[in-house]
């Protein structure tokens, strides 16, 4: 087992180096001189240019610049935002809970709907329910997230008035930032109605963000379940006279879930990039909106740092999924 984890870990290091190379190159690929781009339309004098160049290390050879960059990254120094002058990492940490809260609720929604839908579709193969699940999941899979967000907002917020349009909580509440998670903070604040306001703000964004993962999970669960249901041991279990629901839930589901778990893990990347679009539409103050705004403001250190952190998170989650998969499925663990 340790050998398996070690082997998997050793594959992560070159990937991480590649990502740092990528983000390092990004800022140097900007057409023109990076200092003049950062200075904007005001421009800089020749002395100030040399001073900034030395300060940012642009006067040194590239490999030394890269080495300095990586050693900074490993110490948690991702540079400062050009706009706010705050360290990129602390800005990220302040906004990250909002994104976690949203992606977590979206993942819960995707699993709670996608998994049962896939299971029932497989069990009732060829029925109207099966066809509807397959149609809906293919539609969900083809959905432009930003349009889906607008459509739901139009129907449920504007026309029916059931849910709020945007933001994390009603402006009438002033919630102290304790954990950064609005659902928890609103309970801690003890203000009446704060929690339900926070929860109602989460509903539409979670559904929107969870739609594509839900479709993927439903499709995967269905095909994996169909495969398992045609195995000999399931026929044996049925022949023994075990109750049908028990065959499905206890015997079939356990094996059918193995590939589904991997797919759920792989949705983290989809959720984080989907969050960029969802947060933009719903004015959700998370890292997706932050990244897009930074691109608009040409705040390159933020773009560079943000992409590096998000990519690292995805690598780590994929690593954990792989290890979990190895624990659940010995065949993977022992194969090369």
């Amino acid at each position, binding site marked *: 087992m340790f050998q398996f984890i070690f082997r998997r870990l050793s*594959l992560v290091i*070159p*990937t991480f180096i*590649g*990502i740092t190379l*990528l983000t390092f190159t*990004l800022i140097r*690929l*900007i*057409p023109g001189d990076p200092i003049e781009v950062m200075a904007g339309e005001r421009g800089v004098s020749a002395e100030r240019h040399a001073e900034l160049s030395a300060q940012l290390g642009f006067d040194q050879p590239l490999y030394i610049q890269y080495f300095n960059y990586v050693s900074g990254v490993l110490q948690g120094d991702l540079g400062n935002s050009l706009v706010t002058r705050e360290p990129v990492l602390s800005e990220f940490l302040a906004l990250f809970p909002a994104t976690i809260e949203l992606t977590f609720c979206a993942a819960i929604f995707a699993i709670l709907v996608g998994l049962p839908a896939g299971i029932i579709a497989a069990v009732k193969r060829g029925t109207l329910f099966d066809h509807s699940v397959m149609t809906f999941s*293919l*539609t969900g*899979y*083809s*959905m*432009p*997230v*930003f*349009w*889906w967000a*607008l*459509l739901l*907002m*139009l129907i449920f917020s*504007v026309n029916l008035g059931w849910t709020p349009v945007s933001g994390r909580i009603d402006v009438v509440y002033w919630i102290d930032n304790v954990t950064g998670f609005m659902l928890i903070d609103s309970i801690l604040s003890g203000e009446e109605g704060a929690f339900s306001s926070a929860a109602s703000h989460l509903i539409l964004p979670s559904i929107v963000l969870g739609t594509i993962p839900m479709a993927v999970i439903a499709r995967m669960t269905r095909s994996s379940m169909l495969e398992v249901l045609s195995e000999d041991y399931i026929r044996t279990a049925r022949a023994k006279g075990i109750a049908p629901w028990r065959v499905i839930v206890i015997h079939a589901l356990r094996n059918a879930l193995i590939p589904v778990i991997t797919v759920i893990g792989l949705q983290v*990347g*989809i959720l*984080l*990039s*989907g969050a*960029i*679009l969802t947060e*933009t539409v719903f004015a959700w103050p998370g890292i997706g909106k932050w*990244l*897009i705004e930074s*691109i*608009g403001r040409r705040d390159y250190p933020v*773009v560079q740092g943000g*992409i590096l952190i*998000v*990519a690292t998170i*995805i*690598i780590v989650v*994929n690593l954990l999924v792989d290890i979990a998969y190895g624990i659940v499925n010995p065949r993977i663990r022992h194969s090369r």
Partner: protein
Amino acid sequence: MTTETLQAPVPRTPLQEFWHYFSSNKGAVAGLAFIIFICFMAIFADVVAPHSPSDQARDALLLPPAWLEGGNWVYILGTDDVGRDILSRLIHGARLSLAVGMVAVTASLLMGILMGLVAGYCKGVIDTVIMRIVDIMLAMPSLLLAIAIVAILGPSIVNAALAISIVSLPHYVRLTRAATMSEMSRDYVTSSRVIGASPLRLMFVCILPNCVAPLIVQATLGFSTAILDMAALGFLGLGAQPPTPEWGSMLADALQFVQRAWWVVTFPGLMILITVLAFNLMGDGLRDALDPKLKQ
């Protein structure tokens, strides 16, 4: 007494066989039909569209669709905030989306085939280097990578298409490499090599034609990803710039009118959804028809 001559069943040509399997999938045929329809619209956009996509009718701002009260049959799907005909913009947008899809898919297909063939044929260090690069690209969510590329190069349709083709590259590389490796061990490749075929001939004349099936499927699905990503970039203001009639940027322009005029938001999105769905349906059908394992 008449003698009946029994005719031996004529074996189907590969194309007929393909159509037989493909047409048994109703969804795939529907997808294909819609794609043909939208290609027709895109090619003849200048003739089909009732108005110019940039003509502004100052007396008809935010006009609702024709069948609603206040609608006008001159503007079937209504007009946007500066009085441009939405239907005409959608038709011209189809041209743009399909063109971007075509460019992005072709570019990444060509680069992916080349890299995949070289990696699968050469093995060793070259293979390791190429596959490491591919792994790094796969670790990044495609939209995030595309956003990063566009952020550097500056927002425009060409840069967005470039970003999308770079982002979809890894899938083609992996597919081609896997197919190449499995073909390499076949006897016909060995015999060609013994006869004295050059590496280039082996790669492109012997091996490549036998790897095409999975690539066709991936290219079809790649079209839907390209259209979706293009629209997302357009929506974020990183793709086509106004007043270009691109579906994603049409949506972004309409954001502020969501509450007053639902049609300016609904129709562009619907177009994206149906087009992407059509490509996905056709891709699924192609996979079933081309995959010999499922062909029973």
